[in-house]
């Protein structure tokens, strides 16, 4: 199928390119960018006048809840949510049931995702068997099956000795280890330590839970030379330590979730279970530091931390409610909202969800690494056509994801969000196109 996207504002965050033009697509690749060969005969045209044509979004943290939690999300609904959100590549976490600790599971997941052809799926393998923190997984075989890195999802490594060995082993083979910095013992609370948790009588997670884990990880990175990606930073103090470690030249990258970027613990309000999240929402100064760090590059990427949770698991007292919120369909809008509020250009804003996360993934993407997250002639046609001016209201029941819990629902916030996806292309195929509404 040959597709012509006409008259859009082409934005390539990697180069800063920002100009009106056409995009010609054939056999899954971009064959013309800006000016299209005169003899190009399209089977299908997409009118992008007044809209932006950008690389498809790359989300470094999404849970699809398969296998094991099919009642909360299924590959089909969640990958449809990705496409509707302009996300063309996503990294899924290993905390499925059973966890992604066997090549067979990873191959099955990759195979099913490929058949659905909505978004490219890049699984993270479990760092330890069953995420139990005692035995290393077969990382070489898992990589051959399609894993792009290894992590523990939300399960902290209590055994520092094993963490050291995991980093040694992963670095032997050049694999990246993805860790959410949280001390096992200090991280047991249900809300961030501070005035709100104290007032509401909720058990707290102190900032030290993050900073102690970061210091430990950095010492081990220095000792092993391993490459580590830090998942979902939550505190101003954590950001500062990461900034210094990067200045020291450590091989680390980091991300932050849309929730921590836009919310604080005050939003918990009257025990709203939609605000039960990991990492827990912290204070205003933490949110401000995260927003600044994402702008100055200390934090490399913005992630949805998409976690569909069903109604039974959320209609519980705050501390018992399952953490997590739906996010794939909100990632683009919450990225744009952050960029607008900081006065950044569209290209600079979109970099955090396109070329920057691709840089985090690096060689693990194989041949895709040279063109995913970018607009490159000859590169893969993973694209998002979006209207950055459109405002929309998040109505949870209208989301494609089976996860309906979001802190950003219109009923809760009374706010509209900027930016609407018009079409999403994955490997030159239309994975999503917005239906025109009267």
């Amino acid at each position: 199928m040959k597709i012509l996207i006409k008259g859009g504002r082409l934005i390539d965050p990697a180069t800063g390119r920002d100009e009106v033009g056409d995009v010609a697509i054939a056999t899954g690749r971009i064959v013309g960018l800006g000016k299209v060969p005169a003899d190009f005969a399209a089977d299908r045209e997409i009118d992008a006048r007044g809209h932006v044509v950008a690389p498809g979004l790359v989300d470094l943290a999404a849970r699809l809840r398969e296998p094991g939690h099919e009642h909360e999300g299924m590959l089909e609904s969640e990958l449809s949510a990705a496409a509707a959100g302009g996300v063309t590549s996503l990294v899924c976490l290993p905390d499925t049931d059973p966890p992604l600790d066997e090549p067979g599971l990873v191959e099955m997941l990759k195979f099913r995702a490929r058949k659905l052809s909505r978004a490219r799926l890049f699984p993270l393998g479990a760092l330890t068997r069953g995420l139990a923190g005692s035995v290393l997984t077969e990382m070489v075989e898992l990589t051959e099956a399609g894993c792009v890195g290894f992590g523990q999802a939300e399960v902290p490594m209590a055994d520092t000795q094993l963490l050291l060995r995991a980093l040694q082993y992963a670095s032997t083979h050049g694999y990246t280890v993805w860790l959410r910095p949280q001390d096992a013992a200090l991280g047991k609370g249900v809300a961030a330590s501070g005035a709100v948790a104290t007032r509401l009588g909720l058990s707290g997670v102190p900032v030290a839970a993050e900073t102690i884990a970061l210091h430990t990880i950095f010492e081990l990175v220095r000792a092993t030379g391993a490459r580590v990606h830090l998942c979902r930073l939550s505190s101003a103090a954590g950001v500062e330590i990461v900034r210094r470690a990067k200045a020291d030249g450590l091989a680390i990258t980091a991300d932050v979730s849309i929730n921590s970027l836009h919310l604080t613990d005050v939003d918990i309000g009257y025990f709203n279970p939609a605000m039960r999240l990991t990492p827990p929402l912290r204070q205003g100064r933490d949110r401000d530091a995260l927003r600044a760090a994402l702008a100055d590059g200390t934090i490399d990427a913005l992630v949805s931390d998409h976690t569909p949770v069903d109604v039974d698991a959320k209609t519980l007292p705050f501390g018992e409610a399952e953490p997590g919120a739906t996010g794939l369909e909100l990632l683009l809008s919450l990225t744009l909202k952050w960029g607008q509020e900081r006065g950044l250009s569209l290209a600079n804003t979109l970099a955090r969800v396109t070329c920057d996360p691709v840089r985090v993934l690096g060689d693990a993407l194989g041949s895709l690494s040279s063109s995913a997250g970018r607009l490159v002639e000859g590169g893969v046609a993973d694209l998002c056509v979006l209207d950055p001016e459109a405002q929309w209201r998040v109505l949870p029941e209208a989301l494609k994801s089976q996860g309906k819990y979001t802190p950003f629902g219109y009923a809760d916030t009374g706010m509209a969000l900027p930016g609407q996806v018009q079409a999403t292309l994955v490997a030159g195929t239309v994975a999503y196109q917005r239906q025109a509404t009267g």
Partner: protein
Amino acid sequence: MLSRRNPQLNSHGELIHLLSVEGLPKAVLTQILDTAGTFLSVNDREVKKVPLLRGKSIFNLFFENSTRTRTTFEIAAKRLSADVINLDIARSSTAKGESLLDTIANLSAMHADMFVVRHSESGAPYLIAQHCAPHVHVINAGDGRHAHPTQGLLDVYTIRHYKKDFANLRVAIVGDIVHSRVARSDIHALSTLGVAEIRAVGPKTLVPNDLREMGVHVFHDMKEGVRDCDVIIMLRLQNERMSGGMLPSASEYYKSYGLTEEKLALAKSDCIVMHPGPINRGVEIDSQVADGRHSVILPQVTFGIAVRMAVMSIIAGNEA
């Protein structure tokens, strides 16, 4: 984020549930205390009943055991002529795997008018108030570490009874503040009613500095903490705190923070000593003090019935 209306109040600002003292206007607190005053005399009558809640069904839902608190609510409801049904849920439906909201839906179908809820999780009564039928009223009888509003109200009732005015008072709350729903409710009630100074006294494991954000002065030295106070509220030290990582032993706690005659002598000469009960003699309070002339621990219990009658009758009269 848009903040939702306080779920305890209807659109006229009237109390429809009692979930927390926090956020209640001074006028509502005063109304409860004044109403409680009128009910005190009922307790002295030969026939201790008024017909205000005749025909109403009040369900005591105790997801966490507490015979004493449940009994005080039961007495208050019966003196208002309501029908009282006690459910010890800790040992029944949830043990069979029924969800909290399913339990609530079932009991609502039995035409309950009021739920009195005790739960080990902070915020559980909010969830119940959100999901029960609009005519059902919810009273929080203690949720996790969060709130125990009727205890807070009976504490300020007691203080008003003995001290008449809140404006110049210095009140010390001593003990395990961080895990105490009573302390939180006391702090909110005392601040709303305008006491001059609220102190939180105890070791750093039980009285962290975060508490300053609730407007209290933190003291780690007991003698300094009770000096020149008008009111001392002693909190019960839960058994699990004595053996965990919070405190080395009960006897060492008593040495530093137990209220003895000697420490009490540092407070004002007309200081009153309060305790939500049940007391641990020789752990947080010396027997001589508990039974001494400053102690108002037993009058607190009597006032507690009147305060709970006041809360029940007020919310039953307001519509969502």
